[in-house]
């Protein structure tokens, strides 16, 4: 009775407030609808349209007439181009066959032993991520090149060519494989090992029947990711490939060298095939991985084992030592006055104006571009993920956004770069004025790295109670207020993660932007390619070092900031 009375009494009051209440819901729908529409437009323009242009270009001749699959026929009839394809494939196969076992053992040491200083070993394994892929190639030239100090170790062999490419790729891909495999090996049910042990199982059989099947999907996923990375990487083959042609360098030569856009587009599509295959397989594998681990599984805790831990430490010191060594050589070489005649250390190689006209400008351009990517990219991607996860209306539009957000993952940087060249230069495109500006470089980079950032944001948003918006609405608070007062503060650590990820990748990428820079917007990573091409390896090493140090500084600042944020502002997490 009492309750009924209260409700009855309250309802007129509710009606009195009905006006503003309803208009707030209305404006909420409007706000979300507007955001959804804007996001859809953004992704259509920055992802869908360029890729569509590339597709169209590959079935047109250089005059813009439709020729069907003639370009593809020409491609497969040109022996040098087909040779590049097979070169790319076997280089990728060999590199992957070396990287995966190396990284698996490394990840195993990190996750399944009690060796000391694991964080340090993990950090060392991840170091190459913070440098452009060319850094390892530049370093290898210093070690094994024509004037390399260990050239004799090759016993007459040549570092310029497949050998150099494979070694540099192994180095460059190692952190990516370690990241995937540590995740795969981190998920394990201790009870399975106990059951095996109680049944008197040998270590080998336990490894074969419990450990390997548990990491199976991680291994498959890592294999395809590394294959794709190697096939689509441009910088390494460019710097250390010599006369050895691969797909990625072909695309560059066709477009930049010969202005043969049609053939460039075909190469772009050929590059897309392995990447798409890897993407699809990775998706399938991830879905299975989840269903394998039961909710009641007890996480595996490695037990100390003096012999095993010692072997693990020695192995990680060897591999980690090689990584530090390769990076160290490039850094050291950048300070050597005149290799190999004057080994005194100086900052001479950092006086870039002496090596190329642009001087330090490419570095500042990179810094500016990466900052724009980090800030603008984080906002666009986070709002996009919010719309996909939390909005209710316009299901079709949200579905398309979700799909377009996943596309960049399957598209190699080189292909995105090519697509942008064709798109921006198309005579019908009103955005043509952007060609060669920092803006187009930034937009291109946001599109290039969209997927991983989007998945990160979506994962964080999924963990937030879906009723927050309903509570906000019931309190008659507009949705943007709930977004800014609750969602954004809760997701601050994620926002930082995304911003740093975007910054580091924008700073180190070569493949996409090499087609897009203009006279005044050359980037640091491109300037490394150019200085290396011109034979100024020391300056190239100096620029690579600068990029590495910048990316590392930002990452360290991130770690520091993260601690601060978690310590002070995130007190509610109850840590």
């Amino acid at each position: 009775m009492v309750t009924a009375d209260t409700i009855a009494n309250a309802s007129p009051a509710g009606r009195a407030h009905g006006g503003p209440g309803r208009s707030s819901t209305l404006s909420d729908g409007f706000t979300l609808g507007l955001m959804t529409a804007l996001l859809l437009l953004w992704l259509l323009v920055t992802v869908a349209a360029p890729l569509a242009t590339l597709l169209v270009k590959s079935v047109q001749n250089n005059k813009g007439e439709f020729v069907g699959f003639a370009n593809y026929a020409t491609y497969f009839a040109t022996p040098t181009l087909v040779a590049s394809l097979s070169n790319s494939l076997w280089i990728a196969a060999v590199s992957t066959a070396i990287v995966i076992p190396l990284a698996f053992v490394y990840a195993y040491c990190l996750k399944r032993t009690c060796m000391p200083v694991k964080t340090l070993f993990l950090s060392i394994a991840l170091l190459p991520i913070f440098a452009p892929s060319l850094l390892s190639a530049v370093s290898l030239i210093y070690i094994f090149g024509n004037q390399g100090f260990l050239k004799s170790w090759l016993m007459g062999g040549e570092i310029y060519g497949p050998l150099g490419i494979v070694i540099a790729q192994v180095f460059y891909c190692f952190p990516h494989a370690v990241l995937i495999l540590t995740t795969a090996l981190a998920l394990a049910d201790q009870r399975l090992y106990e059951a095996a042990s109680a049944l008197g199982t040998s270590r080998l059989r336990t490894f074969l029947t419990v450990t390997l099947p548990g990491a199976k999907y991680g291994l498959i996923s890592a294999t395809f990711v590394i294959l794709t990375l190697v096939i689509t990487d441009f910088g390494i083959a460019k710097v250390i490939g010599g006369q050895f042609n691969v797909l990625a360098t072909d695309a560059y030569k066709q477009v930049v060298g010969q202005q043969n856009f049609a053939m460039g587009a075909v190469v772009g599509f050929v590059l897309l095939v392995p990447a798409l295959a890897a993407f699809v397989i990775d998706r399938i594998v991830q879905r299975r991985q989840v269903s394998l681990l039961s909710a009641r599984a007890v996480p595996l805790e490695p037990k100390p084992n003096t012999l095993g831990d010692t072997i693990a430490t020695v192995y990680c010191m060897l591999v980690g030592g090689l990584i530090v060594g390769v990076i160290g050589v490039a850094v050291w070489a950048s300070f050597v006055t005149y290799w190999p005649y004057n080994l005194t250390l100086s900052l001479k190689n950092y006086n870039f104006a002496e090596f190329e006209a642009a001087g330090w400008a490419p570095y500042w351009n990179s810094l500016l571009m990466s900052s724009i990517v980090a800030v603008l990219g984080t906002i666009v991607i986070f709002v996009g993920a919010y719309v996909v996860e939390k909005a209710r209306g316009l299901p079709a539009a949200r579905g398309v956004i979700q799909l377009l957000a996943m596309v960049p993952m399957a598209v190699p940087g080189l292909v995105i770069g090519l697509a942008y060249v064709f798109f921006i230069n198309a005579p019908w495109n009103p955005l043509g004025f952007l060609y060669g500006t920092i803006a187009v470089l930034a937009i291109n980079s946001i599109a290039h790295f969209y997927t991983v950032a989007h998945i990160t944001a979506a994962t964080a948003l999924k963990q937030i109670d879906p009723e927050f918006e309903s509570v906000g609405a019931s309190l008659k608070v507009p949705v943007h207020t709930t977004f800014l007062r609750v969602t954004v503060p809760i997701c601050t650590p994620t926002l930082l993660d995304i911003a740093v990820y975007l910054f580091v990748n924008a700073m180190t990428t070569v493949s996409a932007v090499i087609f897009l820079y203009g006279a005044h917007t050359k980037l640091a990573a491109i300037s490394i390619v150019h200085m290396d091409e011109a034979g100024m390896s020391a300056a190239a090493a100096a620029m690579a070092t600068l990029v590495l140090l910048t990316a590392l500084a930002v990452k360290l600042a991130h770690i520091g900031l993260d601690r601060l944020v978690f310590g002070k502002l995130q007190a509610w997490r109850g840590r």
Partner: protein
Amino acid sequence: MASLQSAADAPREFVADATGARPVHVSIVDVSKRFGVFQALRSVNLNIHDGEFICFLGPSGCGKTTLLRAIAGLDPQSEGAIFIGGRDVSRLPPADRDFGIVFQSYALFPNLTVAANVGYGLVNRRMGRKAIDHRVAELLETVGLEDQASKFPVQLSGGQQQRVALARALATSPSLLLLDEPLSALDARVRVRLRDELKSLQRRLGLTTIMVTHDQEEAMGLADRIVVMNRGEIEQVGSPGEVYTRPHSAFVADFIGTMNFFDAEVVGTHQLRLGETALETGDTIGAAKGAKVRVGIRPEELRIGDAGSGTNALSGQVRGISFHGGFCRVTLLLDIEHPLELAADVPAQRLRGMTLAVGQPVAVTMPPEHVHVFG
């Protein structure tokens, strides 16, 4: 009520006596276990007899799982010794200890079929392929899963997975079966059915079995003897009837079943005083006269409604009645100086002859033999 209680006791006492006569199978001597500074077990001593079904019962963190894992050798004890079948296994790895184990999470190998899971331990013993197939078929029949042999664990229900885990543990014909909360991940109906099956299988095979559980009902229904644990120590060992009717401590009384607790002052060896009201108890009080002791009585032993004239006859007032199917729980406020609230369970059958309403005064009797005194 009292006669019903003793009737339930009879077979339990008999079982306890019977197992007492059998040889010792597992012997735990002064076993302690530390995790860093945390003392998980404090010199535990226990003998387990051949063919006995033992339950380690206690709240989470009481050390029951730690003790089981020490017996298995999965987490060896810090101090003390463990004997299985007269053999000192204290330093032996799990594989050399002769037991089968079933985990709460089943821990079936997800990449192997049901048959391969059951035969997993047999392969390790280098048994012939034919012999393995034969044994696997036999075990699957025992647990009633002969038609599921080629399926993978994900394709089975939780109850079926647990049966596979049981078959795998029994495959090598161990003399000792260890169960780590094997039923707690299942839903209530399946749990009860599997509990009965487990019990009859254990009886049939005459297998010494140790089961860890935090569910007192499960322990009561399955165990020959219950080992009640708290804070790394054994509080009491006894048949289900013993630990229920004669709890050694307030902890055991509170953990198993429900009990009303209140403080009273010692007057004599069997006499107490609750405020100004005199109380008698069947227990022999060890504490000195004038000392404060904790007193407990189970809700079903409180009698209400009878004319209050005998020993421990009190009066009170009904504060609330809640219906529980077979019985009603009546909340009473005793008419003494310090307000004391007690719960009394009245069988539904008896309630029909009474008229109880909130606020009504009522006579309350505490039969002395059910008034427990804890130091």
